[in-house]
């Protein structure tokens, strides 16, 4: 009945609206009727100053927050009211804090087993079987950190960079429908951040993951992904497609922001460049 084949959106946000502390003097519109569509394989970077609504947007998709209005669709299914833990079967997530994505008192292989078991209901199967261990080992090699030889080391003993690399692997190796990266390099030193950025690129390309990445680093936002949006005060104020993004520079982005908002990016400017 349709004319031609329509590519379905893997992630679709329709008119998402969220107000915090409604009816009090602290009332704040965190998201203002946001529309967002990601096609399979899209890698979108999200930039914007503090309080622009980036984190709220992520929490809407992961299910940590429920919108006041609007709907969230993953792979065509309405998940607006689906609880966070159920939704996380479809959605992988890496947090800003390198400590947040792994369990420190448990071993590397146990952490990977937890991530591996995310796709279905958990049962009484042995978490780290021999077969799974081989699987974990081959994936850890991809990180080039030698972690494949330290399977039974407690994760709490790893450095921040190693933990974030492990978090990234754990969030992705079950090939989730959507990957959310929440400023996942912001808390690392420049060398480690560089490593995680290149690993991100490698892994996302390998699994062709549909990805949404929030970042404070404009250069990173330009280097990674095929689409870019800029947020401010709960709205998407600027969006580029694949072609436009290739010619974009940090200077042009800042110019764009000033043109739209008619004001200078003040304190954030220093952070953003």
């Amino acid at each position, binding site marked *: 009945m349709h004319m031609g084949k329509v590519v379905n959106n893997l992630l679709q946000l329709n008119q998402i609206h969220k107000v915090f502390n409604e009816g009090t003097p602290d009332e704040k519109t965190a998201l203002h009727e946001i529309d967002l569509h990601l096609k399979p394989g899209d890698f979108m970077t999200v930039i914007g100053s503090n309080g622009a609504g980036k984190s709220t947007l992520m929490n809407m998709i*992961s299910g940590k927050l429920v919108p006041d209005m609007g709907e969230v669709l993953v792979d065509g299914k309405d998940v607006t009211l689906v*609880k*966070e*833990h*159920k939704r*996380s*079967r479809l959605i*992988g*997530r890496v*947090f800003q804090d390198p*400590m*947040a*994505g*792994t*369990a*420190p*008192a*448990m071993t590397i292989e*146990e952490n990977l*087993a*937890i*991530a591996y*078991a*995310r*796709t279905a209901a*958990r*049962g*009484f*199967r*042995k*978490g*780290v079987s021999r077969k799974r261990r081989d699987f974990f080992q081959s994936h850890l090699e991809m990180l080039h950190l030698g972690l494949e030889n330290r399977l039974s080391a407690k994760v709490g003993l790893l450095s921040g960079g190693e933990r974030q690399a492990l978090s990234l692997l*754990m*969030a992705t190796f079950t090939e989730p429908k959507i990957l959310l990266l929440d400023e996942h390099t912001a808390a690392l030193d420049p060398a480690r951040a560089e490593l995680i950025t290149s690993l991100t690129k490698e892994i996302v390309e390998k699994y062709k993951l549909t990805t949404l990445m929030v970042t404070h680093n404009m250069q990173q936002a330009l280097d990674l992904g095929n689409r870019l949006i800029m947020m401010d005060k709960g709205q998407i104020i600027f969006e580029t497609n694949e072609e436009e993004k290739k010619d974009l520079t940090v200077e042009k982005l800042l110019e764009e922001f000033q043109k739209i908002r008619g004001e200078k990016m003040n304190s954030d400017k220093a952070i953003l460049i």
Partner: protein
Amino acid sequence: MPTAIFGSIEAGAIYALMALGVYLSFRILDFPDLTVDGSFVTGASVAAVMIVGGYNPFLATMTALLAGFAAGCLTGLLHTKGKINALLSGILMMIALYSINLRIMGKSNVPLLSEETSITKLTAFWQGLGVDQAIESLFGALGMSFVPKTWGILLLMLVLAFAVKVLIDLFLKTDIGLAIRATGDNETMIRSFSADTDLLKIAGLGISNALVAFSGALVAQYNGFSDVGMGIGMIIIGLASVIIGEAIFGAKTIVRATLAVIGGAILYRVIVTLALRVEFLETGDMKLITAVIVIGALILPKLFQQQKEKQRKRRRLAEAKKMNAYGKSGEQFAAIKSDS
């Protein structure tokens, strides 16, 4: 004296089940669960009332275990769904259970001395095997005069404690077990990996209190009565067992930690028995002794650590001084060396 210590090891093996339960809530779930004071008695009362009512004592013990599971789940529900602070939800359940336990028993004390219990049944079964005589003759040959009534309860209870320990070890390595451990370790993380942390906490507290009630039921049958006050301070005894065990036997892996908890539970009973032998201490001082033991077990390792650090610093300082002296008189040393 040997008889008293033998008795304390026997009791320790039974209390080890309770300590394993406390280990699950306190260490694995990171949940200081005070329900224990109530659920221990719930186990004892359910078992006692059923035994007096003529039920099979093993069935009574299993029912007690289920009652403990229910009590633990309720605490979990209060905490996760009612969003009540962890400590407070445990205390609330503890207080509520006090009345419930009185209701179950109908009075404050149910004697079991004239009843056939799991313990008397097991003793009879053991004595039928004739192992006691064999051990006795062995001891006689070695010239030892110590003869307990039976070895059966000690050995069977140790086997039971170890069986439960192994089951816990295996369970904590399954997919569900790993998720429960992660819930106590990093809740944000495990929720982002599709685990329902509320459900895991409820189940974990249920299992923990099932073990506590199991232990309570056996202790009632071992002591020959169930009393509404027998659970007071039980959580502290459980913590003492966990902390002493971990301090002495180590807790590097789960397998090691659960073994340490059993060792700690037995050791705790032995320490209390020995302490009560001191002339100026009375039975009523037991809770005070327990508190002192726990405080000691919590503070001493830290003091040792500080002491070690100080020594290390002092040694390094002394070494640095020596090196300085060495550097100044370096030429002399060189001269001597070249001479030789």
